[in-house]
């Protein structure tokens, strides 16, 4: 009954796509309108926290090496930490603006975890290429949450922050067990299943 690994990537991709859409709509309307309904400020932080919780079973059941377990565990922890920090800020329990740095911290740790746990340099193989792409996306994309932490109402920073999640979702949807990248697949990679 355990889903194949690529299906788990696609389910998380859907979560990140929704997260990106929530953030993009918040960037479009601004914080005042976004906060007009009491549940809405908690929507995306709780979503991020929930995705962090769901990352734990991934860590447990999809451990094919120690470094994979460490990477999935790191993602689970930083997603929960960042989601919880944003929940605290939304509720007003956390007042120190330095808590806004939780998201950039999560981005940086996530990006490094992607880059460090995918040690295979096979760029012709899709999952390997995508792990490197995702790692650099998070490491470079950290500028948006950093800018957002510095100027929370800056539309460019908020929209860029949202778009990182949309691109992340697209990359995760592209993840497949074995498939060519840019139309080329080395014979070393084996036979594609579909």
């Amino acid at each position, binding site marked *: *009954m355990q*889903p*194949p690994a690529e*299906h788990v990537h*696609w*389910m998380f*991709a*859907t979560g990140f*796509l*929704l997260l990106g*859409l*929530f953030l*993009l*709509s918040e960037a*479009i*309307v601004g914080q*005042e*309108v*976004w906060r*007009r*309904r009491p549940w*809405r400020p908690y*929507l995306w932080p709780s979503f991020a926290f929930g995705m962090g919780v769901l990352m734990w079973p991934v860590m447990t059941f999809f451990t094919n090496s120690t470094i994979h377990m460490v990477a999935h565990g790191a993602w689970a922890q930083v997603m929960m930490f960042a989601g919880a920090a944003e929940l605290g800020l939304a509720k007003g329990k956390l007042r120190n603006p330095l808590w806004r740095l939780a998201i950039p911290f999560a981005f940086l740790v996530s990006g490094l975890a992607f880059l460090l746990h995918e040690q295979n340099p096979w760029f012709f193989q899709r999952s390997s290429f995508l792990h490197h792409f995702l790692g650099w996306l998070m490491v470079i994309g950290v500028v948006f949450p950093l800018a957002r932490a510095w100027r929370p109402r800056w539309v460019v920073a908020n929209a860029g922050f949202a778009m990182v999640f949309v691109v992340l979702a697209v990359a995760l*949807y592209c993840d497949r067990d074995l498939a060519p990248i840019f139309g080329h697949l080395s014979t070393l990679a084996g036979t594609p299943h*579909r």
Partner: protein
Amino acid sequence: MSTHSVTQGLEERSHSRGLALRPLALAVLGPLTALAGLVWAVVQPYRVTLLHPDGQGFWWLVVEPPLLVIVAGLAFHYLVARPLIDDLEENSSAEGLPKPHLGKP
């Protein structure tokens, strides 16, 4: 007429145009996402397992990326974007700006 009042008028007009575009952007966000999923399903039909379900297991029938994108787009539109458009219209009314008339007939 001073140049200041002219530029102020232009700024106000471009600001109100920007505000008027916001409900439109919100209204198309979900449907555009769903459309992207639909186009993906047409371009890569082999990723929609429902089109050839024989011998497929539970996960292959439930988790199909193009369909997930369509569902995500529609869910976002009906559950998040529409109430948000209503709030945006109410906010515009409260601020005395012209109502955009989007999202409601």
